[in-house]
């Protein structure tokens, strides 16, 4: 599947969501918070040791656990 994992991006990088890997439940939860294919996300920071990832979507900030974050696939400008 095309796209980079959210967890692979550097802090400060941004991209557009292409897909959510895995089951429907995660996709639903993410969608409710505004994360769905076509939406632009900025990665703000990631914690050490596989901790939660902080992202910005529109005007809101979200923290997502590592396991969930690595299932969000993005398309960035340089790929």
């Amino acid at each position, binding site marked *: 599947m095309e796209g980079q994992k959210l967890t692979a991006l550097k802090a400060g990088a941004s991209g557009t969501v292409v897909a959510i890997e895995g089951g429907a439940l995660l996709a*639903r939860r993410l969608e*409710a*918070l*505004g994360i769905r294919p076509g939406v632009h996300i900025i990665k703000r920071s990631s*914690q050490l040791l596989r901790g939660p990832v902080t992202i910005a979507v529109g005007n809101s*900030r979200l*923290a997502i*656990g590592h396991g969930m974050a690595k299932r969000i696939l993005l398309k960035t400008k340089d790929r």
Partner: protein
Amino acid sequence: MIKILLMGNPNVGKSVIFSRLTGVHVVASNYPGTTVGYTRGTMKVQDSTAEVVDVPGTYTLDPTCKAEEVAVEMCGDGDLIINVVDATNLERNLNLTLQLLKKKVPMVVALNLWDEARHVGITIDQKKLEELLGVPVVPTVAVTGEGILELVRHLSQARPGTLEYDDGERWHEIGRIVEQVQQVTHRHHTFWERLGDASIHPLSGAPIALIVLAVTFYIIRIVGEGLIGFLFDPLFERLWSPLMIRLSNLLGSSGVLHDILIGRLTDARIDLIESLGLLTTGIYVPLAMVLPYVFAFYLVLSLLEDSGYLPRLAILMDTLMHRIGLHGLAIVPMMLALGCNVPGTLATRILETRKERFISITLMAICVPCAAQLAMIVGLLGRAGWWGIPALFGVLLVVWISLGMLLNRLVPGESPEIFVEIPPYRLPYLSGLFKKMWMRIRGFLLEAVPFVILGVLVINILYTLGIIDLLGRLTEPIITGVLGLPRDAVGALIVGFMRKDVAVGMLAPLDLTAGQLVTAGVVLTMYFPCVATFVVMARELGVRDMLLAMAIMVIASLAVGGLLNLLLQKGGLP
């Protein structure tokens, strides 16, 4: 009485609007069968009274967690819906709005955080939005009160809405609406936004967290001790005790009724802690010892919640907490427990799964000393040399981590990953904050206090029947053999159930070595919670889990105590 439901995303200011609409008579309840809370109140609409319900925040009517399930169920129950929308996040908030429109319930939209939207460069054409949705749209700034009067005036114009769309096309429809009503202009990051980001980043976040925690504990100590020193102790000493002595004389200073109500006298005076009477200890313990810290802690917790700092702390702690099977938010009950284990235990309701609640409640009772225990530790171990106190805290920390990891493996169930919205830093709305505090304190008074009184009664009866002494004699060989403490220490451990710092007083004259002091201190902290905590734990966990927790407590304290005995005493340290 018509029922008005306040619905919207979390963190949009629903509670502030609720607070503005309702009076002082608000009730906090749990939705039946869940730990999800909601609040109800009443307001005057034209000439009649309406019930207002603050429904738990939800992002969607397609539920993804318990709080959302409850919101969905409650949604079918209302006559009128006030949909509180965050003007700074219009697109995401409209997701719920559109879903609510399908319910065809009369609705009004409160476009809240209107001032914040302006600050971030967002303008929304509310007339156009009203036209597109088919329901009244009222801009509000709940914290200042702007727009609230308008909102109430528009309630009579609530209608089911005219927008029609296909479910599959919802986001497309939302995009279309947002395009027509919202304009965004660029602006620079504000100081608070930068501070908000800094608070999460591990390097800058950790020092900020330490500062916040230090200030928190300072406030709690001041408020808690202040209440005890200036209000409750004088009240009890000057008013209540003399009254009790008079009652005691009236009852002839002895006899069953006397002992139950007033307890046993010490040198013809009433010791409010040791007498074990319903009217003495039964009232003194919850009101003068626990309540001041409960008040202080709820004050601080509400401030941390409403300012927006709490989720940031949870994120910083999350990685570490997951190793011991807990969600980052579990740091909150643990912090509360450092003042008093009672609000700490009650606070575990914010955790989603039974496994998390069990682990956090058990770890808390074993490893987190409350303010009274902290005083005890300092008093007892002051004489154990410079290494005594750090040793004790070191042991507690190690046990907390290792027991946590162990329980994480053994207890079946899930610890869900963190997934939270991080609200911007906001100035708390004081009136709403005090209302929230009042509701929590009232919850404590109604839920915990009657059971503490019951606990005191039970102990009193057990004492009278000689069962306590019997327990003492039975456990003696363990106390002396495994823990290496003298026989008389047994009495201290028994009394420790009621009040741990009194137990210290009993250990003081026993002339223990430093090693014995550390062992005794650790065991006293770990083996059993005080009666108030015990009672609240039992109610939160249920009988089966409570017995399991008790077994873990006893085994853990014996194991650690025994180990300390070997290392410190036999190992030849001073």
